[in-house]
């Protein structure tokens, strides 16, 4: 008992710096955001006035917010399913390499964008998609396509284009997760399937996918959260434009609300947090139960 207490105290000392750090940079601002969301705030004068759910009502009824939610949903729908499918396929191909070296090289290449600064990546992609000077349109022109899209400058193409950038940024992370998970599946399962005459496709759908369920749930949850919070690459490449076509919730918060109504900005943050928490919980609840059972 005494030994246990001593271990507990030492353990607490080890985690104490992290607790303090997270408390200061995460929980305190979070609590403050919750508090501010129910107040009319003047951050310069340090005054606040209780307004109840007034800010939430205002935010939810605002056409700009509603539009930004639609834009965000569009972005999520373009990025998350594509990420799941492509990362699974790529992972299966990488795991299938006979030489481990090639697999490692491929994984590293796919992972590189994850460790690249999103701001730098955004600027580079901005140039790649430039209508007159960009690589993409010059290649398309060389191939004979004269009316190539204006990508980031077109209200109809800007969202799919930033989705491509978001996809590129996140793909490597998912590939690493799936490759690791696939490598941990015992080879005996596949050997038994081979003996039973199962094709590669059948093995993938009957063995690999079910056993990857925990990772699929995790990746889909993480990617949903990342996509819903997409900001850096969008802000750098389009700043929410053209004509609000890529103004996601976070871009809307920063550009339209932050310096006009701080309380409303906090209300958006709270709404976003609650929404993502609920979705994550539901994903975990409904997608993971079958595997755990």
């Amino acid at each position, binding site marked *: 008992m005494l030994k246990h207490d001593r271990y507990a105290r030492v353990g607490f000392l080890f985690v104490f710096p992290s607790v303090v750090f997270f408390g200061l940079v995460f929980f305190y601002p979070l609590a403050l955001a919750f508090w501010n969301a129910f107040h009319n705030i003047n951050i*310069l004068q340090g005054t606040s006035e209780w307004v109840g759910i007034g800010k939430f009502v*205002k935010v939810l009824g605002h*056409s700009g917010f509603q539009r930004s939610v639609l834009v965000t949903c569009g972005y999520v729908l373009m990025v998350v399913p594509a990420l799941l499918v492509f990362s699974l396929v790529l992972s299966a191909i990488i795991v299938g390499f006979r030489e481990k070296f090639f697999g490692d090289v491929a994984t590293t290449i796919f992972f590189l964008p994850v460790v690249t600064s999103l701001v730098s990546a955004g600027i580079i992609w901005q140039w790649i998609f*430039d209508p007159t000077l960009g690589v993409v349109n010059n290649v398309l022109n060389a191939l004979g396509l004269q009316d190539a899209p204006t990508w980031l400058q077109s209200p109809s193409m800007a969202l799919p284009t930033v989705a491509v950038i978001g996809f590129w940024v996140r793909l490597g992370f998912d590939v690493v997760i799936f490759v690791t998970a696939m490598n941990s599946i015992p080879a005996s399962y596949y050997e038994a399937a081979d003996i039973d005459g199962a094709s590669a496709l059948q093995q993938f759908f009957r063995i690999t996918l079910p056993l990857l369920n925990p990772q699929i749930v995790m990746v889909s949850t993480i990617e949903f959260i990342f996509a819903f919070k997409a900001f850096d690459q969008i802000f750098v490449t389009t*700043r929410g*434009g053209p*004509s609000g076509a890529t103004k996601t919730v976070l871009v809307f918060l*920063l*550009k339209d609300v932050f*310096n006009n109504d701080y309380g409303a900005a906090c209300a958006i943050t709270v709404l976003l947090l609650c929404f993502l928490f609920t979705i994550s919980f539901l994903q975990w609840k409904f997608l993971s139960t079958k595997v755990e059972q």
Partner: protein
Amino acid sequence: MKSILTFLTVAFFSVVGAAYAGAPVKSTEVIELTYWSVFGQSPPFVQAFGDTGTKLLRAYGYPNATVKAEITNFEGYEQKYLSAFASGKGPDIFVGMAPAWAMDGGLNPVAVPLPDDVAKMYDSKLAPYTASWGTYKGKRYGFAVEGLMQMLYINTDHFKEAGLNPDKAPRTTEEFIEIAKKLTKTDGSGKITRSGYHPRFLGHGLGVADKFLPIVHIFGGRMLSEDMKKADGYINSPESVAAFQFYYDLVYKYKVVNLDFGMPERAFQQGLTSMVFREGCLAGDTIEKAPNVHFRVFPYITAAKDYAPSNLLTWANLISKNSKHQQVAFDLFRALATVEGDIGLHKPAMYEPVLTETFKPTNEYFKTLVYGPALAESLKKKIGPEYLHPKLDAIAYIVGEELTACLKGLAPKAAADRAAKRIDEALAGF
């Protein structure tokens, strides 16, 4: 009698001595005033505030004072300012619009009103066109950063090539369209390789609106009502819609614009467009970055109204309430209210001065400006509507976004109606 003579002699030499020694020393303390500017497109212009400010402040009685000029990225500058000021920090002096930052009624009260003598000094010295900048609800918080006035830039080589006289720029919208059509070049497939004119439709919505509203004004429209409480019936009035239609037609009916060319300044400097509207700042920038582009500057075009373009963005130098050196900053403003200060602030980047003394065509600096004659002619006209509104950023941003939508194919009336609805929503909330 002898003592009176002695006193008078001492007094005389003291006065003469003081006059020759320069201004009395006010403080020998080491002081650093920080200045934040959003004019990142011209670092020499921002640095000029630091250099001229330091020089004049030292001559004003602060031998150890320095003014440190820093650029704040225009994109997201409001958030950076707000975060800095809210934490009790931020610069001593900053570039902003008074209605947004004025202590008395501003959206985010940070800028302190100038002392009476400084306010009166600027009231009497500022060129009438820039006089309202830096003021809000009758109080003066600062003075205009530069005398921004949009004018028409033409590429003279393109004019000659098209058989047009570069001394004769278009004066009306009809002439503008005709000349733009003659200047436009296409390739075999019909794709525009050189725009007759190129509008601003990319980047920050505020900048887009700033460049578009003069068009709205010359068509007789307005962004907001006179009392600035309503947009419906103004930005979507028949006159304003005509302005949207004018821009729309330039792209889709007359086909004199290639939207792929991006920002108008860059297109002009690359020779991709023959005409653009811009303030005097483009002249110095083009001479430096594109010396092969030969150009001339003319006053803005006219339509139903013959307005000189008012400036949407009334950028002014303001002083923060958080500054520990407010009195020094006030003294700096006193020192800058001189021709020497005005020229020192604007000459390095060839920008428009702001004081009447330097803003007039007879002034030596004014004579050196490429756009001087066009500016002088513009100033003879009535200035278009101004909007000194605390939420100008948010409101004008919407106009910019809807203009972009219009140029990308949305019907002009629909774009104007959407702008009106969104602005009224912003006026009521955020």
